[in-house]
Structure formats: structure tokens, C-alpha cells
């Protein structure tokens, strides 16, 4: 009976600490169906974990919002490519043999 209860609890109830351990996998969408259901059941019944999840997600959103690349057009202008190519052409080793190009 005790074993049955322990098993029942393990299957149906996660502790806050266990929920915390699943946060990364949950946010990444990697939890299997059973664990995801357990996770969400806990979150629905536990305000502390709900708030923590909200902050955990907000942290990720804030990091994305602060992405330095946001201030740049999706493709940096060809200027950088040109700069890089001319930088390289100035620095290529002189060819050691007369390989034709």
C-alpha cells in the first residue's frame, strides 16, 4: 500500500524542485507527454511555480529584446563584406608557387 502510494505520488505529483528541474526542457518543448501533463498540473495548482515560470520566460524574452543584433538590419550591408574582402586581399600570403587562378 505504501509503495503504491509512493508510486502514485511520483507519477501524479511533482515537487516544486522537480518542476524547476524541468523548466529548461519545458520551455524548449522537449518534455514527453506524461511529464508535460504532470508539469502543467503542478503549475496550475501552485502559484509560486507559476510566478517562477513567468519570470523564467520573461528573462528569456528580455534577453532577446536586448539582442545587440536587433539594432542591425537582418543582413548587414554589403559594406562589411567588401571591407572584409579588401582586408583579406591586403593580407593574403603572397603565393608560394605560381599556381594559376
Amino acid at each position: 500500500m505504501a509503495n503504491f502510494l509512493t508510486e502514485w505520488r511520483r507519477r501524479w505529483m511533482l515537487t516544486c524542485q522537480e518542476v524547476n528541474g524541468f523548466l529548461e526542457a519545458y520551455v524548449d518543448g522537449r518534455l514527453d507527454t506524461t511529464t508535460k501533463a504532470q508539469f502543467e498540473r503542478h503549475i496550475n495548482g501552485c502559484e509560486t511555480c507559476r510566478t517562477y515560470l513567468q519570470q523564467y520566460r520573461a528573462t528569456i524574452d528580455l534577453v532577446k529584446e536586448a539582442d545587440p543584433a536587433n539594432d542591425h538590419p537582418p543582413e548587414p550591408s554589403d559594406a562589411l563584406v567588401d571591407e572584409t574582402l579588401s582586408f583579406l586581399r591586403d593580407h593574403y600570403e603572397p603565393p608560394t608557387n605560381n599556381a594559376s587562378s
Partner: protein
Amino acid sequence: MPNAPSSSRVDTEAILNGDRAAFEAMVESETPRLFHIILRYVNDDEAARSLVQETFLQAYKNLDSFRGDSQLTSWVTGIGINLARSWLRKNKRQQPMDEETMERLQPDFRFGRYTGSFEPWDPEQTAERAERKELVHKALDELSDSYREVIVLRDLEERSTKETAELLGISRGAVRVRLHRARQALRSLLDPHFASDFS
């Protein structure tokens, strides 16, 4: 898929055979991606631009040491990451956070429950956008490199766990653990600024 590998224009064989035009074609197709990742590491425009150039130069000079156990573009990205790391070491980082501080920023549990309590966040209400960005960068700069770069690769670059593991030369499990700990540390550092109940 902002960062899907775009190796279509990369003719690895020609590049390894010393075909300069093929190398330059790779420079053209890879520059945007490389610029973004380096910029995300260093958060400095000028530095990122010159590190991109340095990366390709090093790649060109060291092509013989490419062993072909990863894509050529990943190898180049790895060079860029190394250059970005050493730039950070020289130019930015004050005191990298030690493991003990990192541990203090993780939540505490007693009998499976959080010992602390949490107030909901309302970042939009508590800080202007520019201020939010500054707070986040300050928090990110406090993390040690090994945690910060997992945030850069997973949350900003949106690379997969597998790709991140390969780029950093660590296991996927280590990527997941570091990412979780890094996010939790950031959460702790940001908490005083964003809790909506700040009266």
C-alpha cells in the same frame, strides 16, 4: 529559421584546394551570420566588424588544420567565437563571476519547495525599453563566459542544443544545465528591477 546552415554556397573542396574565389564566396555568404554571432558576444559594433575580418584571415591561414570532422562553416564560427572570447577577456570583463556566487543566484529549496517567494514581473511597466536593455546587458556581463555564451548561442542565436554543444566542445547535457543555471542567475539579478510590486 534565422540561423539555418546555409552551406549551399560553400564549396569546401575547392576552398581546401586553395581556390581563393571559393573562399571569397564563403566570406560573402557567411559574413552576416558571423557578424551577428560575434556582435552578440562582444556587444560592440566596431569590434565585431574587425573580428569578422580577423576570423576569415585566420581561417584562410589555417585551412590546413581543418580536419573535416565538422562543417567548414562551423569551424570558421569556432574561430570567430575564440576571437570574440579573447577580445572580451582583454576589453570588457571585470571580475568573472565565481561558482559560489553563481550558486547563490540559484533558487533554494527545502523539502522540495522554494524557500523564497516571488512577485510577478511587469518589465514593460517598471522600466523603459532602453533601460531594460541596459539592465539585461549589465546582468549578462556579470555571468562568467561559460554561462554567458550558452545564453548567446541558445537564446540569441537560437542554435540547437546539439549545435551549441558542438561549437563549445561540451556535452548536450552540459549545455542544458548551463543554460538553466544561467537563466536562473539572470532571473535573480533582474528580479529587483522588474517585480511589479515595488512600492
